[in-house]
């Protein structure tokens, strides 16, 4: 009985095998090159989990059609040099997509290496998803066809931050402190530039750069801020460098406003606790407590993701860019009907897609994602506007203002060189 069916089965499977290449389900692997050890590891770990959450979600909902995406961690120990080694090792293992973001110094090194690699190895191109390196150069003078940025850059955020700050007439003296590398330099430049334009009467009473990830005790810096008589501090610090700065400020009773870029990152909420209430403000491209600022369905969708993430990992979700990366990448693969990096990169340019901020656009001219920005203040959970807290502190961010994408948008000087479309 069974023997009679065999030729038929054989014929079908042969047909299937020939038909397969057209719509073969591929698992596209992305090398996630971040700090996964040491004091800055919690951020990298958190983002890797965020990526994995969304690739899983995308797989179930078939965002990329038959294809699915997988993120694999590569530890760069926070160093540009080590990142290049990891990039090489990922390329050798056949990876054609990489993701990185924590550290513009690292991102600049990676872009440079990828440009060279792609030029020398046609047919083996690599595409770079940048989820949080925000040095403006990456989408201006050093822009690259292979690089896509999903965070808002320093200038976009400073535009929003300085407009907000300029309206507050109690701000008279500003102190700028940052990490001594590409990002820190850009923040201090942007702060001076934008404040001069918007509030020339504000005095810059201090401008400090400290080595990144080296300072364990910020009390000398805090004593200096205090001595300068500043009423407001602007800092681009992130991770342990921000947590320890706020901790030192808290310890010595420094009561200035802190305008930050990254107060929501791992460890900072715990360091702030009650001491940061109403003083610490942050500018970002996404916040969960936005019930008064975004459509209800969008708010509930975001909240659902945050709550699920918390339940699963007992950690806060904050790098929304990971959602944007998976969303755009999936849509581009589906529309290009290919997983080839060159075709996918062309598809991603200028594409409009769904992020957790609603529909956003990957600007074609410089590969800078255009999205709204939010300014929020560290406040006690009140169940009305501040619903989700951070790191179980009982405090969360109260959204003060939403800045629409077209307001936050900045011109670009990028002269993009594109490969031949094959």
């Amino acid at each position, binding site marked *: 009985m069974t023997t009679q069916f065999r030729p038929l089965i054989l014929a079908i499977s042969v047909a299937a095998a020939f038909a397969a290449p057209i719509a073969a389900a591929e698992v596209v692997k992305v090398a996630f090159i971040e700090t996964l050890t040491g004091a800055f590891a919690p951020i990298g770990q958190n983002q890797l989990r965020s990526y994995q959450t969304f690739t899983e979600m995308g797989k179930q909902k078939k965002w990329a059609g038959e294809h699915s995406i997988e993120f694999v961690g590569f530890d760069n120990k926070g160093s540009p040099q080590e990142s290049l080694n990891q990039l090489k090792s990922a390329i050798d293992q056949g990876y054609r997509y990489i993701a990185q973001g924590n550290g513009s110094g690292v991102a600049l090194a990676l872009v440079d290496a990828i440009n060279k690699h792609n030029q020398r190895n046609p047919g083996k191109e690599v595409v770079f998803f940048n989820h949080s390196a925000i040095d403006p150069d990456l989408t201006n003078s050093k822009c690259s066809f292979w690089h896509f940025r999903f965070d808002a850059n320093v200038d976009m955020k400073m535009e929003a931050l300085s407009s907000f700050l300029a309206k507050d007439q109690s701000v008279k003296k500003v102190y700028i402190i940052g990490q001594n590398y590409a990002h820190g330099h850009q923040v201090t430049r942007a702060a001076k530039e934008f404040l001069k334009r918007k509030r020339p009467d504000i005095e810059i009473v201090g401008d400090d750069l400290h080595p990144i990830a*080296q300072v364990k005790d910020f009390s000398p810096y805090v*004593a200096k801020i205090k001595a300068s008589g500043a009423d407001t501090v602007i800092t681009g610090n992130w991770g342990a460098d921000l947590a320890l700065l706020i901790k030192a400020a808290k*310890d010595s009773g420094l009561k200035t406003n802190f305008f930050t870029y990254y107060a929501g990152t791992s460890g900072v909420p715990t360091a702030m606790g009650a001491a940061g209430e109403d003083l610490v403000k942050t500018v970002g491209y996404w916040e969960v407590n936005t019930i008064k600022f975004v459509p209800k369905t969008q708010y509930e969708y975001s909240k659902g993701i945050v709550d699920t993430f918390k339940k699963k990992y007992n950690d806060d979700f904050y790098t929304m860019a990971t959602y944007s990366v998976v969303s755009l990448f999936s849509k581009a693969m589906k529309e290009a009907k290919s997983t080839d990096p060159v075709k996918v990169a062309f598809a991603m340019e200028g594409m409009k897609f769904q992020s957790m901020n609603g529909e956003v656009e990957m600007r074609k001219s410089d590969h800078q994602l255009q999205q709204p920005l939010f300014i929020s203040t560290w406040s006690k959970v009140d169940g009305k506007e501040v619903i989700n807290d951070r790191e179980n502190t009982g405090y969360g961010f109260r959204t003060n203002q939403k800045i629409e994408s077209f307001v936050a948008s900045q011109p670009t000087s990028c002269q993009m060189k594109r490969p031949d479309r094959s």
Partner: protein
Amino acid sequence: MEFTFFSLLNGLSYGLMLFMLSSGLTLIFSMMGVLNFAHASFYMVGAYLAYAISSQIGFWPALVIAPLLVGIIGAAVERFGLRTVHKWGHIPELLFTFGLSYVIVEVVQLIWGRAAVRYVIPPELSGSLFTAYSTTFPMYRGFMMLIALLMLLAIYLMLTRTRIGLVIQAALTHPNTVETLGHNVPRVFMLVFGGGCALAGLAGVIGGNAFVTEPSMAATVGSIIFVVVVVGGMGSLAGAFFASLLIGVMQTFAVALDNSLVTLFGRFGVDFTPDTPGYEVLKLSISDVAPILPYLLLVLILIFRPMGLMGKREG
């Protein structure tokens, strides 16, 4: 005034912390001639053990138990490792401790993972100690200073007032004579090594929660304590004390100074503009280079006073 006062306090507390770390290192060096590269690793082990113990039975027991455990580990390392290597000379000893430092970091990462652990200051020590002008001084910093001073006093009394202290001092310079007098010199070595490690462990217990407890914490302090020992004079406890305070205060104040070569020359009427060649270097302020100042001091001391501030021996 407010600034000077608090910077001085911050500098002193940082300096005392450095002293806790370097005292063990300098004691071991003066006794045994061993430059213990794994010393900072014992600091890290102290912090991690304190984290593990304090999450079970509280901070105060950890303050006592963790340094003792580190001391026992140190003594075991001397008894079963260094003593065997000792007969091959100083270079193998050096290499032994060098390798050991890597082994310890890896073991710590295997047990506690690669990320920082949540080792926090106990609530009873987390308030502020006093408020002067409008700045508050955290109680924990006061506690750190107190522990360091108590430790200094204890070492001093032990070395000068007790029998074992006298034997240690004698064994420092005349180990053979001490041995012929019937004292067990190898055991004294073991005690000193264990004791030195316990001091590093104690520094870890109180430094781990004041700063961050993570696998790279050993590397962060590892280089600076060598600076302290060299600047103070190899083997000199008093030298280590003054060098620690000097470096602590120097680094704290350097952060506050915004003077650079540009401002210095500007005072003499020589103005540099961003077009001047080397402007990037000239405009570096003292606060920008604060983190490398101790190493600059190290180089200068080695050139002009190789025996260190209070060292007795040459080189």
